[in-house]
């Protein structure tokens, strides 16, 4: 089992609904977020292209945040989900420094926090909150080992890229282009 997410940049409108849905689902404190929107514009008016993408933790197969964690708070759950055990975290911030995606933040309660792929929902067979809310249905989640999962079907016939492949982290977020 290998959980992953695909994001269709041709449909994302950058509305930030995924961000608010994550905030209310996971009680992310105001002023912080576990997912966010990136806007990239290329070209000169009027020959332009715009890419909008919803980003979050890449739940890397080769995850530097887990390797560098001195207490083992950062670890890998079943299905490859990278998560942090709050009470084991000493808030040293080594994982924040090591993440090439800038996906982690220091929670005001003193631990490091990040996207969990909504582990509490996924364990019940549900989608993540961001996937369930997205009005453009541009987010796809599921098990890469299952060829019929939403995420497998989404990347099957489309060109895609991952972010910062040079970091060698083997990220599990696929951006459809």
């Amino acid at each position: 089992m290998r959980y992953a997410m695909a994001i269709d940049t041709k449909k994302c409108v950058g509305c930030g609904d995924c961000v608010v849905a994550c905030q209310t689902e996971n009680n992310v404190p105001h002023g912080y977020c576990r997912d966010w929107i990136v806007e990239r514009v290329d070209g000169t008016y009027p020959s332009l292209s715009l890419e909008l993408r919803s980003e979050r933790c890449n739940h890397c197969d080769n995850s530097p945040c887990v390797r560098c964690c001195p207490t083992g708070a950062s670890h890998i759950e079943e299905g490859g989900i990278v998560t942090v055990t709050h009470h084991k975290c000493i808030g040293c911030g080594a994982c924040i420094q090591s993440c090439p995606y800038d996906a982690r933040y220091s929670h005001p309660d003193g631990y490091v926090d990040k996207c969990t792929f909504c582990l509490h929902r996924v364990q019940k067979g549900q989608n993540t909150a961001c996937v369930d809310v997205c009005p453009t249905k541009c987010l796809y989640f599921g098990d890469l080992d299952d060829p019929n999962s939403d995420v497998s079907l989404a990347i099957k016939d489309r060109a895609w890229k991952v972010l910062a492949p040079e970091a060698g982290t083997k990220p599990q977020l696929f951006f459809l282009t």
Partner: protein
Amino acid sequence: MKTRRDFIKISTAGAGAAAISFKAFGSKGFGLFESKIEGPASDEDLTPYPTYCEVCFWKCAAWAYVDKSGTIRKVIGNKNDPHCNGRLCPRGTGGVGMVYDEDRLKTPLIRDTRKDGSQYFREATWDEALNKVADKMKEVKEKYGPEAFGLFNHGTPGGQFHHLLKAYGSESNAEPAFANCRGPRSSAYFSTFGAYVGSPENTDIRDTKCLVLIGSHIGENMHNSQVQEMSDAIDKGATIITVDPRFSTAAAHSNHWLSIKPATDIALLMAWIHVLVFEELYNKDYVEQYTFGLDYLKDHVKDMTPEWAYGITTIEPEEIRKTARAMAGAAPSVIIHPGRHVVWYGDDTQRGRATAILNALLGAWGKRGGFYFPEGVSVPAFPHPHFPEPKWTWKDWNEGRYPLATMGITTEALKASVPRYNYKHQLKAWLVAGTNLPLSMPDKRLFKEAADAVEFIAVMDTMPMDITGYADVVLPEATYLERYDALRASPNREPNIALRMPAIEPKYDSKPGWWIAKQIGERLGLHDYFNYDDYSEVIDWQLKQLGTSLEEMKKVGVKKYPRKSGPLYLGDDEDFEFNTTTGKIELYSVDFADHGFDAIPKYTKHPEPQPNYYRLIYGRAPMHTFSRTSNNPNLFDLMSENSVWVNPKVADLWELENGQEVWLKNQDGAITSFPVKVRVTERIRWDSVYMVHGFGHSNKKLSRAFGKGASDTEMVTNVMVDPIMGGTGMRGNFITFLTEDPVMEGKEVKA
């Protein structure tokens, strides 16, 4: 000038201490907060209550999930609802922030004067505040007649106060949604098809093969089901054509982006019509069977070639031909979107007509993938005596101006409130329900003059908006998640109703709109119009007439009914009589000709910016709506302020840098009250600037939104009025940049 009514800016303890500049766009926050927040709750531990959203007008049905401590944890779309299909937009998802905004209006407030003459609000009991409103209504009725008491309303609670005013004897109401937003398209489509484009619009985007957006920003406007359907259409390979001077999100997702010169849209539309007619690409059978006036149209557009339009619009003739052919190739599954917020240059009804004519030529009205026939549920009125007949209504303010207006025009209501306009019928007092007039009305001078001229203003709202600063009495309303409201029954593909019930008790000393309206009504001796103890009785009675009950609706939230009016689409060659003068789709509008208006649209040249000035284009961001969400803690997290988009060439010229604060000044000398950050981007032309509407709040009680960004409305002093229906065109304003803080005295509009 000393005015009778000072705008009261109340300082609040701690305001300004929590000035958090946070953007979800690319950064992730910093530790400014103490938190005692629990982790995620399992849905099984939460109780869902049905509601429908009140953050914008789309009114998506949803479930509010409440935990055991009585806190609303999240709001999730109702899967059975055609407005949202189980997915709310960011505003709807963040709607919970409306409830837990600590800046909410908490108690009734009454304007009072200190010994030194300065004015302030003092807290009052409900009884005192309601008596004050009722006493003033009695006084106005006695002195001037009930018609002189006007109502500005918007949204669901507005309906309760409309009921109150009608029972009292007044039909002097106006909502900015008509003349400031969608009115021109209503008049345009009614004159063409004898039917209105409703809300949600009857556009069959789900099945379209070609969607044309002209000044329509699906994705930046989060009109929920339309955003969803456009996404589905992209999946199915539909051709998307976007006409916009700005590289909008929709433009970025389109097959064709026509980067039109602003204010020239009618020329493009007429050239498209020319191509369809003279290349004989129009839907001949449909046009012959259902339309009136093809010969007039043909004659009218004969010289309006793509080459003619090129000189006006800057769109290449071949691009005009190619896109017209793409539409024809997809017909009748094609939609030239009628748009929303269509008040631009004062000829907006005619621009709407041009889009309607295009839709007619392509045979799209009444066809799959074009425009479907919507159907709503008729909710029976709870029994009450007939309303008294007013001696005059909003129609009489106009005195023959704007003959095709179908609702009260807000600017006319303001003029009717100012004695120097010398209107035959004048307003002496206002009730304002759910609309933040200072930020939703153009021409702030007119608003201020009117607000100062009337004897009394009562404002009902959930938040201390800019409008509450002008009130004599402020009535704090419960949010939509804390109250019953009228059933939602908007027309759709399937007729349906949705229930809103309280998920929690109203916080603080706020009260539901229905309760406030009833209490005022009782004080006016109007009990027979409010013959219930709780509004749930009204809803339950109505539901029983509709073959269901409050009990059932609490479980399902949304109920669908079978259609009675017939199929969604016209059958092949089906006889059909349109509700127009000729019974046909009018390419040539007989009604317009009879009123002395152009029967077929023509292009008129509009003024262009003077040197060093740029056309102000404003619009929406997906996470905010109107000017009412800026302080919502969840939505503030997503977007805390607006910025002014400036092309890099213009930025070079002015030596502006990304993130630099500037003040804007318009052609009439109006200056923004607050500075706004520059955003240097290629997504805007060099002759225009762009900003998102609804920021630059001047009420200090909005501890987050106060002074964040600038108000576009302050820059709209030139209003180009549509002669047909009174629409207030707001895109004829030009701004320049001030890089130094202008002196305070200079901030009033001097023009």
